[in-house]
């Protein structure tokens, strides 16, 4: 309940800010809702944002469960997406059912490796994972940019993007979700994301591995006494986090675009932090909060057209205030204290 209140508080504050820009907050709110759910087309776009947000939310959440703050989902995802595109462009002759599997596997390895580096540095060298993952995000952006522009650029376009993967890699012909939402990037990987979320819930709460992971996160000292290796768990958690973020390659490359486009992500990795926090890192809750944040993002990106002063960057303000509303639950006690004193 408190989290829902925090979300609403953050959203309300963000909307009230629009007064400074001379807009009517209620009007802005109706635009947000209409452009997120107004038509099948709008809903399709909202869902196409939801899928990567589920993956990134899960990635951030698994870090939190192990007591780590993974701000590196953005970089892990970037490495995975460019890897999937590279496989699809450089190995065009792989036959259909095998091809997408191969691309996604390669993507998971790339994402997982990017997470593993941060996990290893944290566990073995004690390096602050927040700074390391931020630096890794910049490095990933640089490497992926080089690969996309210099190694496999798109010969038919001036846009900063890779060439298209061979058609064997796409599952469009079999995609029932994509048929429901024509002309949008929404695709069947949404269903897959939900399945992964359920699997992660089972992993965290029904397996010994999941228990160990949560033990290290919630009480490292007790976990240590119980003979659980904190280092191994930290490395494993960051590797899994990287692989989860890597699944974005499924929705982005194999499912919709068929290429890596520089700047395709509106900071999914960062929005994933809000997604995970809103859901208290519960994988099932993440499905819902990813949908909410996806809707807000889609809604905010239409503000560019529908209002004269508010731009898509407004989405960031909403995300930040929602995070603060959820994470600063201390205001309950603070108000109580003030009332007692006053």
């Amino acid at each position, binding site marked *: 309940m408190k989290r829902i209140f925090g979300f609403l508080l953050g959203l309300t504050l963000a909307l009230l*800010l629009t007064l*400074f*820009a001379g807009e009517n907050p209620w009007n802005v709110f109706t635009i947000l809702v209409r452009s997120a759910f107004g038509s099948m087309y709008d809903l399709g776009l909202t869902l196409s944002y939801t899928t990567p947000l589920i993956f990134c939310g899960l990635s951030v959440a698994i870090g939190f469960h192990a007591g780590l*703050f993974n*701000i590196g989902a953005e970089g892990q995802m970037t490495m995975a997406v460019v890897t999937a595109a590279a496989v699809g462009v450089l190995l065009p002759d792989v036959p259909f059912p095998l091809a997408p599997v191969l691309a996604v596997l390669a993507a998971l390895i790339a994402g997982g490796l990017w997470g593993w580096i941060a996990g290893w*540095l944290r566990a073995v*060298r*004690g*390096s*602050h994972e*927040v*700074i*390391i993952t*931020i*630096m*890794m995000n*910049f*490095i990933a952006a*640089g*490497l992926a*940019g*080089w690969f996309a*522009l*210099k190694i496999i650029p798109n010969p038919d376009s001036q846009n900063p993007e890779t060439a298209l993967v061979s058609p064997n890699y796409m599952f469009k012909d079999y995609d029932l979700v994509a048929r429901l939402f024509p002309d949008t990037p929404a695709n069947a990987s949404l269903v897959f994301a939900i399945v992964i979320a359920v699997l992660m819930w089972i992993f965290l709460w029904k397996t010994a591995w999941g228990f160990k992971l949560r033990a290290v996160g919630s009480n490292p000292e007790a976990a240590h006494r119980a003979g659980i290796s904190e280092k191994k768990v930290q490395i494993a958690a960051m590797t899994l986090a990287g692989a989860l973020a890597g699944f974005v390659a499924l929705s982005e490359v194999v499912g919709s675009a068929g290429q890596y486009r520089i700047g395709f992500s509106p900071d999914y990795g*960062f929005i994933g*932090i809000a997604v995970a*926090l809103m859901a208290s890192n519960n994988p099932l809750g993440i499905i819902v909060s990813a949908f909410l944040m996806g809707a807000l993002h889609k809604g905010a990106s239409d503000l560019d057209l529908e209002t004269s*002063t*508010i*731009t898509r*960057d*407004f*989405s*960031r*303000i*909403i*995300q*930040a*205030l929602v*995070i*603060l509303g959820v*994470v*600063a*639950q*201390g*205001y309950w*006690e*603070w108000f109580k204290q003030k009332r007692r004193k006053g």
Partner: protein
Amino acid sequence: METLTWILALTLATLRLATPLIFASMGGLISERSGIVNVALEGFMLMGAFAGAVVGYSFASAWAGWGAALIAGFAIGALYAFFVIELKADQIITGMAFNLLVMGLIPFITKILYSSTGSTPALLVEDRFTFEPLLLAVALVAAISFWMYRTRSGLWVLFAGEHPEALTASGVSVRKVRWAAVTLSGGLAAFGGASLSLFLASSYSPMMTGGRGFMALAALIFGKWKPVPALAACILFAFADAVQIRLQGVQVGGIEIPVQFVQILPYIVTIIALAGFIGKSRAPKALGHQ
């Protein structure tokens, strides 16, 4: 002779590029020595860079922008203090949320002020700083080294981060010390941002900090939370940045090094430094504890 000018140019570039890092890492130092983790330095810097550029441009004076950056930095630092000290919100998550908030607020404000979300209008070249922030940065390190270890209020900050109970026992409010430290850290980090927009460049451009807030934090950790070693670390990272700029377009054996490889150099140096390949670093004892 040519090598000499080359070395001189590289040294000057290093010092210029070190300026924003030094301010930000001194800001981080005060906050973290008082026991409050500060990953919001990036956002504080952006705020300072933006406020500095806007006010500096409208008054055609870098000093006016410098003052505005300080005020903006104090404001956002105090807001951060309110969240982490009064509301006891998680320091790292709140810090990241502040970064996100600033990244959203700045285009929101530029749109209102200049009806665009890009860069702010530029100062005239003769209006912007030529060397002043660099001197201030070095003076700041000296001042903090003296203040923190030799004065009563400096020791309060150290105790707030190491033995808050002892500070309470001696009748000083840990809360107030931390409030002051975090607010001050906002102002100093904002100076770092303003030296980007008024000294290294002459306007604010979106995301111009490029992770420097986090590098400053890394410099702080690498410098074992001490002023002079942190300064040295800032200079190391700035050197990597200066080399990076020099290496762009340089050919090795007839092949040009891809610009993207060169650009990631400072980030790699930061990771290597942080991975502690040169000795372990110990954080203030009460850092991050409520």
